[in-house]
């Protein structure tokens, strides 16, 4: 019964979006963006570089366009219908507010899901083209296959006590390694004020819990930028704890005798756990959860305000959410690190105190929303896990979406929709 009514309202929403040519415009805009990127992006000249930039830009652009479009559509779902009095006829039918809210939201997210599917097919196609254009054993082909069109689980190594003169990290290898995967990648950075220095000689070893050697390699590392080391996938035991041991080979007088690992970029191991297709699907699902939340926000705000004000209020809320992050970050900076001021502080103390606590309060509420990010992961071949997708669905769609739904239904119950305008 309830489902029937919800589906009816969702169907109406989709029909309107299609027939008002909203979906068509969105489709054309998105496709022209994707095709435009595919035709204009050059990257670093290699297929891998081009693919990486394309995946990154295309995913970002699709996220932004779909986010804005869904928010736009959602803001008008109630506000426009209240304004042109179409909702009167629906509200006098035996429909509950919650059914109406969910129906509208469902219609919008269905349109978004359709668009995400189109984007997914395009990105899949781009991946397939890149595979065809590169030889599996070439440098470009290996980068495409081992670092981009792959789902690699990121495992952060934890610093452990090592013997004198050695640096040691421990990590748990993932339970399953993708069949056919050839290499895992170790990634690390040093702290260095120097740029463009010649590489240094380093030694890496992997040992199991009993101290038995699993892998050893001498390689070059750069003081600035990201260093990567390929480790044969079969040498890492799935599901077991291993230790990574770092040492330096000082063989030239002008090379540094010691290095400092970057505190903000931990030592990480990227282990291939799946293919690009599944990772793309999970990335799109994560994006879908975010779009669904935006749609929920728009629908709820639209129950309270007129259309333009609803759009504006929603965008303002999103901006405020992002700005609080900046405030919290900047308030965490140590005072006194700047320069001397003449006279009073620029900002009065009480303003800083109130602002900081306000920002922290808002941050508490919105932090989970900002937690589920996909930026750079698809293009970097970093796996989005099913756990993340489930968690995002639970938090973004059910928890926050549910809260917004409750707020929207409450507003709808209180609102007199037939007030003279």
């Amino acid at each position, binding site marked *: 019964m309830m489902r*029937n*009514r919800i589906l009816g309202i969702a169907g*109406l929403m989709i029909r309107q979006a299609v*027939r008002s040519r909203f979906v068509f415009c969105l489709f054309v805009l998105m496709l022209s963006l994707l095709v435009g990127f595919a035709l204009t992006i050059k990257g670093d000249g290699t297929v891998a570089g081009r693919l990486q930039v394309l995946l990154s830009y295309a995913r970002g652009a699709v996220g932004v366009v779909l986010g804005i479009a869904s928010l736009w559509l959602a803001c008008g779902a109630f506000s426009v219908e209240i304004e042109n009095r179409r909702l009167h006829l629906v509200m*006098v039918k035996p*429909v509950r507010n919650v059914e109406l809210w969910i129906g509208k939201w469902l219609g919008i997210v269905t349109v978004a899901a359709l668009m995400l599917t189109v984007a997914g097919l395009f990105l899949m196609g781009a991946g397939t083209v890149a595979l065809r254009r590169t030889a599996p054993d070439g440098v470009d082909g290996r980068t495409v296959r081992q670092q981009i069109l792959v789902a690699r689980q990121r495992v952060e190594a934890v610093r452990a006590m090592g013997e004198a003169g050695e640096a040691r990290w421990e990590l748990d290898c993932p339970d399953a390694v993708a069949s056919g995967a050839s290499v895992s990648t170790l990634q690390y950075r040093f702290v260095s004020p120097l740029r463009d220095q010649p590489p240094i000689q380093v030694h890496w070893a992997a040992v199991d819990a009993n101290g038995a050697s699993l892998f050893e390699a001498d390689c070059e590392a750069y003081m600035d930028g990201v260093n990567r080391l390929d480790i044969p996938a079969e040498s890492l035991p799935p599901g077991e704890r291993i230790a990574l041991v770092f040492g330096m080979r000082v063989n030239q007088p002008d090379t540094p005798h010691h290095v400092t690992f970057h505190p903000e970029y931990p030592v990480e191991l990227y282990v291939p756990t799946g293919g690009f297709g599944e990772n793309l699907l999970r990335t799109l699902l994560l994006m879908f959860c975010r779009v669904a939340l935006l749609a929920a926000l728009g629908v709820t705000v639209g129950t309270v305000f007129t259309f333009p004000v609803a759009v504006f209020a929603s965008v303002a809320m999103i901006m405020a959410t992002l700005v609080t992050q900046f405030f919290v970050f900047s308030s965490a900076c140590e005072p006194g690190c700047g320069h001397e001021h003449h006279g009073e502080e620029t900002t009065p103390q009480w303003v800083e105190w109130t602002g900081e606590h306000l920002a922290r309060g808002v941050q508490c509420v919105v932090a989970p929303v900002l937690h589920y990010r996909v930026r750079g992961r698809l293009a970097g071949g970093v796996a989005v896990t099913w756990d993340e997708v489930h968690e995002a669905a639970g938090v973004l769609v059910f928890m926050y979406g549910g809260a917004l739904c409750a707020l929207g239904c409450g507003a709808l119950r209180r609102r007199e929709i037939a007030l003279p305008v």
Partner: protein
Amino acid sequence: MDQATNSTVLEVVQLTKVFRDFWRRPRVTAVDGLDLSVRRGEIVGLLGPNGSGKSTTIKMLLGLLHPTEGSISILGGRPADVAVRKRIGYLPEDSTLYRYLTPRETLMFYGRLFDLSVAERRQRTAELIEMTGLSAAVDRAVGEFSKGMARRLGLAQALLNAPDLLVLDEPTSGLDPMGCRQVKDLLRALADRGTTILLTSHLLADVEHICDRVVIMYDGRPRAAGTLQNLLETEERMTVNVPTLDAAGTKRLLDLLRKELDCEADVSRASMNLEEFFVSVVKEAKATDASGHGDDSQIAAFLCKVRGG
């Protein structure tokens, strides 16, 4: 239907609606202490000039506005109750329908909100489209409709659930005279079958034809209420209807009245009102040239069928 709702379908006590400004200060009292009781099968008309509070009253009865004071009991429940809304049909003042849908899709959509089965929806949709004379425009988007066509579709959606209470805001507005007549005949037929009807109208002739009772509102307050007979009857004069007489016959009749009853009397030729004349002309034309207008007897039969009457 329980005993209470069997006799009284709508009970409004001291209903008041005050519209407020941004600062929550009272701006306009649209309805002021309205008492109204409507029994099953009655057709009650709310009359009044613009801004007298008719539409506001209707919107409060349907839960689209919240009363500032007073209580509403509608079909034994509150306006917000889903179970109550299941038994109400509503035609708003301006038929605000989804402009991108066709008439069929519109009725199928509203049917879905009433939880009608697919087969039931299809059947009722087809019948109502036929009956409201929209068969020729069945695949056109509602946005392209004229006001009259949109009104017919609005009426069709109001009848979709075979309602126990039909609330109509200016039901004949935008309709051609034939359409007006059909609507009025339909409403009468519905009332005869037990449907309660509450309507507002500016057209007094419409109300006079169909309403059992009227409430005349002005400035938000009821100024007169009662059956049409009670309200319109004049104590002082009577009318005598006879077949057309020639001049001599007329003179004899007047002499007779003056002599026997000792009163002033006059004689004039009986005439139809314009609507009756228009309907007779169109009916005559219809006999030779079929038009797309629906037939009210069909609608009555439809409602009789879906309600098992």
